[in-house]
């Protein structure tokens, strides 16, 4: 006897899963904009999440940014000095930090720390049926748990990026003074002479998108986690990977747009 079996996949299993992930994220994003802008607003929870995301990530972001600024100058210095361009180190480091290193490092650190934290937290609530309980009690869990977290990441990543830029520039100044004797006034003048609004604006704007994608991925994976505690771990892991890839893709798109507009 022969049976005709309908295929479970359209393209391939992996590609179908990839498309499902995108669809899941898109629908979650649409739901955020649909439900998030409607009152009532959960201001207290937003502030609470901002505290958890912003202040509790500050130390980690600061240390990383300082070290990266320092290392950037120390690695670049020999080559630049060899070409007689040692005096361009402040300008080079400031443009690198403000345009790319500050926003990207902040986003990647937060994708690892915050994305996984949100995903694990929401996943735990999901598998322990706390989210269901909230629905039963009349509270909108999406508005309270998801919208507040996405909004908090969207707002806090830019703030953390500003700190990261400043601390990274301090690191670069320290790096410049390890082998050279660079005056602080000279350094500040050179840094801000080299920078233009066209360097700052795209870099600052893209951090909102970084924050949004980190919050969105973390919440999506956590909110939709299944299979008990094992699913929570997996959701946390996947959310970190997807958030990082998302950050890098956004970075590439923003760079391309900035280039098309003639600002690069």
């Amino acid at each position, binding site marked *: 006897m022969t049976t005709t079996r309908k295929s479970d996949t359209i393209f391939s299993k992996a590609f179908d899963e990839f498309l499902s992930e995108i669809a899941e994220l898109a629908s979650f994003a649409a739901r955020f904009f649909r439900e998030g802008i409607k009152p009532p607003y959960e201001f*207290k929870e937003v*502030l*609470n999440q*901002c*505290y958890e995301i*912003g*202040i509790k990530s*500050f130390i980690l972001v600061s240390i990383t940014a300082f070290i990266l600024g320092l290392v950037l100058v120390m690695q670049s210095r020999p080559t630049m000095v060899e*070409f*007689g*361009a040692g*005096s*361009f180190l402040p300008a080079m480091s400031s443009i690198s930090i403000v345009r790319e290193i500050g926003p990207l490092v902040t986003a990647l650190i937060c994708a690892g720390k915050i994305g996984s934290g949100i995903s694990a937290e929401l996943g735990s609530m999901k598998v322990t049926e706390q989210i269901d309980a909230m629905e039963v009690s009349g509270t909108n869990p999406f508005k309270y748990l998801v919208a507040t977290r996405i909004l908090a990441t969207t707002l806090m990543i830019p*703030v*953390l990026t*500003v*700190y990261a*830029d*400043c601390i990274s520039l301090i690191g670069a100044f320290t790096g410049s003074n390890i082998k050279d004797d660079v005056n602080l006034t000279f350094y*500040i*003048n050179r840094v*801000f*002479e080299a*920078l*233009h*609004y066209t360097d*700052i604006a795209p870099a*600052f704007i893209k951090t909102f998108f970084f924050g949004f994608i980190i919050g969105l991925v973390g919440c999506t994976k956590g909110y939709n986690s299944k299979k008990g505690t094992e699913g929570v771990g997996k959701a946390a892991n996947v959310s970190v990977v997807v958030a990082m890839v998302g950050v890098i893709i956004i970075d590439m798109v923003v760079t391309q747009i900035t280039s098309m507009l003639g600002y690069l």
Partner: protein
Amino acid sequence: MDRTVRKNILLGLFVLIGLILFIVGIFLVGAKNEMFIKTFPISARFTNATGLKVGSNVRYNGVKVGIVKSVKLINDTMVQVDLQIEENKRGFIHNTAIASIVSDGLMGDKLVNIISGKTEGVPLKNNEYVMVQNPLKTDEMLQTLNKTNDNIRVITDNLKSLTTDIVSGNGAAQSLYKDTVMANNLKKSFSNLDAITNQVLQVSKSLQQVTNKIQNGNGALSEIINDTVLAQNLSQTMDKLKQISDELIKASGSLTKTVEKANSGKGPINMLLSDTTLSANVQQSMINIKKASVGLDENMEALKHNFLTRGYFRKMEKKKRKEEEEK
């Protein structure tokens, strides 16, 4: 204090500091890009504005005075660069100033450098054009460099050919390079040349010293050259010498005639020179005269001692002695 309130205060502080840093950064960038200071516009027209961008620095004699506001093509050969200059620098930039596009260091960004004019001028007004000096064209420089490279290639080819000949043993160059005998000869020649040079040098030094002495007025030669009286005397002496010489020539002529006469066998001189008998007689006469002279001496000595003539001789001696004492 409530934990939530404390968290909110910390969060507010965190955001506030971040915001302040951001605003300060924006302000500093704006200040460096001259967005918060009063400026005035001027323009410059170049044939080539490679590397110049909006926001590039404008310097006056090396000091930053503004930025490039826009770079635009106005026709197929001309680029207009609009400059935004700080208002408080207006008085320095005159209509005789010259703008050029230069690099900030060897690898730095392009910028507009304005230098003051050689003559006095009046400050530029809004939207006026500053005179320009067009930048060196890299293509032309590269073309020249290319020609130089071609020449260097030809030279290196020739050198290569020459060195190959030397090494392989062709031509005179190889002899110079490898023949030890020739090398030794050359070495000796150079040694001799060195010695000659040294001698010439010494002679030259001696001549120099002589010349110096003459110039300084030392020595007879200097006197001869410099003393006009002596020169006159010398001239007179030379004239006299000439006269004497003439006389000598005449005397010599007479003497020649006499000798010729003597040689011809005429006259007493020839007889004296050629007649051997006369010569013997003369010789005998001379012997006789000598003997007579000795006899006369003896007679005179006898007279000095004779009592008749002895008084006369003593008187003569006294007179002679007296004359000597008077002297």
